[in-house]
């Protein structure tokens, strides 16, 4: 930032921690890209019913493993049109292999409409609506094809965003709360309490995670509803993920406990509570946010890999892991490669979080000399 004229100088001098962090953060282009992508995902996760043309479990007739629809900027007469049109499909049996195959039906062309009425839904379970961002009036549109049960892969991916992100957020929240309490106690009191907690943390960290998860998954009763399984998953992820955060919080507290300005506050007669909440937490909270951002991909990947192994979420709940599980065998990948498209979401989400984490890490200490 240029701080050369008087106005911007005063703005800089009276800027709080968060303003300084933001000014420094926005200088990272990749982080800005990352945060944009994440915001889009967040909007998807909040309003999947609107962005998906179909429900997550809605079947579209017999169209099993239907390839992605072909989108063209032509109208029925074959002339250019700014409105995109989609071709329908005809099912034909291949004379040689005797397989059913989808052939683009040049005669059946539908204009792709935006903000169309479609299947009814309730936003957040209360607000009724039926408008979808895009759709066709007759027939079906499957931008990313359909799966083995004739469900729209695009719609399912959008819905999966909600469960995958929310499981990450909830899991991380649980991990954060546990980490804050345990790490805080460990760092603030020190002595044998600290020693005991550190050994306990090391013990938990030394348990191999996948066998543990497999054990826990096996222990989950089959009769549990997918929703219960979902919540159990968040709790498990949280209970395993807190150790790193607890250590970070502990080390942050230890490093600032002896800082001059904390001693100064103590000498001012500030109470323990005031020192913790007014002086200590604002000092290290930005670093913790960085840690949270960086551990987020871990949560998402854990969920994805667990579900992929069949240990985590189960249909009809959709998550990125569940979607990828459907693309597990070589046959599916060979014949309908579009089933792998959801992995793009996983990759984008993980990369975005890493980019944002990188930017935040550089911005977290806005008072350091390097700029």
């Amino acid at each position, binding site marked *: 930032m240029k701080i050369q004229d008087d106005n911007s100088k005063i703005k800089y001098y009276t800027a709080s921690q968060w303003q300084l962090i933001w000014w420094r953060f926005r200088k990272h282009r990749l982080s800005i890209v990352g945060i944009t992508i994440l915001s889009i995902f967040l909007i998807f996760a909040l309003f999947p019913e609107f962005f998906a043309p179909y429900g997550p479990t809605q079947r579209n007739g017999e169209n099993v493993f239907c390839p992605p629809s072909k989108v063209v900027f032509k109208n029925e007469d074959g002339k250019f049109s700014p409105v995109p049109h989609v071709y329908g499909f005809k099912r034909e049996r291949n004379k040689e292999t005797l397989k059913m195959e989808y052939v683009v039906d040049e005669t059946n062309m539908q204009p792709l409409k935006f903000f169309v009425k479609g299947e009814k839904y309730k936003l957040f379970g209360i607000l009724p609506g039926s408008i979808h961002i895009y759709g066709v009036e007759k027939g079906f549109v499957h931008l990313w094809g359909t799966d083995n049960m004739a469900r729209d892969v695009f719609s399912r991916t959008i819905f999966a965003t909600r469960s995958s992100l929310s499981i990450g957020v909830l899991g991380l929240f649980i991990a954060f709360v546990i980490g804050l309490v345990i790490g805080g106690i460990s760092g603030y009191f020190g002595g044998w309490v600290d020693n005991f907690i550190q050994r306990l943390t090391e013990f938990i960290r030394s348990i191999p995670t996948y066998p543990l998860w497999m054990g826990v998954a096996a222990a989950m009763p089959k009769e549990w509803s997918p929703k219960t399984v979902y919540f159990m998953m968040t709790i498990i992820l949280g209970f395993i993920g807190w150790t790193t955060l607890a250590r970070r919080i502990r080390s942050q507290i230890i490093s600032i406990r002896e800082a001059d300005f904390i001693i*100064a506050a103590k000498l*001012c*007669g500030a109470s323990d509570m005031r020192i913790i909440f007014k002086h200590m937490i604002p000092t290290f909270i930005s670093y913790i946010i960085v840690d949270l951002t960086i551990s987020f991909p871990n949560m998402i990947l854990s969920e994805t890999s667990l579900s992929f192994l069949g240990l985590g979420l189960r249909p009809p709940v959709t998550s990125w892991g569940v979607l990828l599980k459907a693309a597990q065998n070589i046959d599916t990948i060979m014949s309908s490669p579009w089933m792998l498209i959801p992995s793009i979401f996983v990759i984008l989400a993980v990369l975005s979080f890493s980019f944002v984490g990188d930017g935040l890490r550089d911005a977290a200490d*806005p008072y350091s000399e390097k700029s």
Partner: protein
Amino acid sequence: MEDNILVVKNLSKEFPIYKGFLRKSTMSVKAVNNVSFEIKRGETLGLVGESGSGKTTLGRLILRAIEPTSGEVIYNFSDENQVDFLKLNKKQLKKTRTKIQMVFQDPYSSLNPRMTVRDIIAETLVANKTMSRNEIDERVREIADLCKLNLEHLRRFPHAFSGGQRQRIGIARALAVNPEFVVCDESVSALDVSVQAEIINLFKEMQAIKDITYLFIAHDLSIVEHISDRIIVMYLGQIVEEADKRTLFENPMHPYTEALMSAIPEPDLLRKMAPIFLEGEIPNPMNLPTGCYFHPRCHYATEKCRKEMPCMRCFGNHKVACHRAEELHLKQYIKY
């Protein structure tokens, strides 16, 4: 009213050293070792020593920023109130803290970068909950003005200021509650030369206006000489010499004081230094020498110095811990 604002008796601090898996404390470092002294009301007592002498620890002990291992710290405040500082409970301690304050060395790490200047100065007032918001604001403006801070800058955060201005904020914070006693721990040594003088002057002005007693800790003898009335010299956690400033510089009685003075680099071409070469370096405080702690480096050491630890002896107002104090005629540094 008692003449001494502070009486320190046999104050010690040992830092245990933890080792091994079970963190057993097998050894300890004596950072401050059986120290006794008094500070008179209204004076400035200089405390000099090199790194490892325990001067910073001592400053923090008498404010209970660190809890002492043993000893007594007694304050006599102007309201005829004698306080046995180490025996106070939390509530009494909080009240007493408004009368004793500290100005730190590093103007960068001692101010919370996330608080505005106004909030930093107001911290003691807010923590004590005796004033309304308006009263606090008024007091903050008053003290900021005294410390020559621009009142428009109170909204700003510390990152807007240079070292000298930050140190003014630190001083304003310490003086906001009208303390009677202030510990200045190397408060000017991190500042640039051209800014240092202003801060030293500010300390003196505040002393004149508010009748403050200072304990001024520093390693730079010329600054201590300038600001102090009396000077204490520390070596390895012990006081080795204590005297009036003039007496000390005209007639040092401890060989360490003599060596320390001989090493002052004076900005004067006629006073080229002739440093007395001290053998070796300051010993490891975990493994202290027998007898007088200074004997391995002392040119005047005898058999007695190697075996027996000297005790503090008074020669009028001049106190020295050296076996050979009266027979040695050490080099006068300056004649006033």
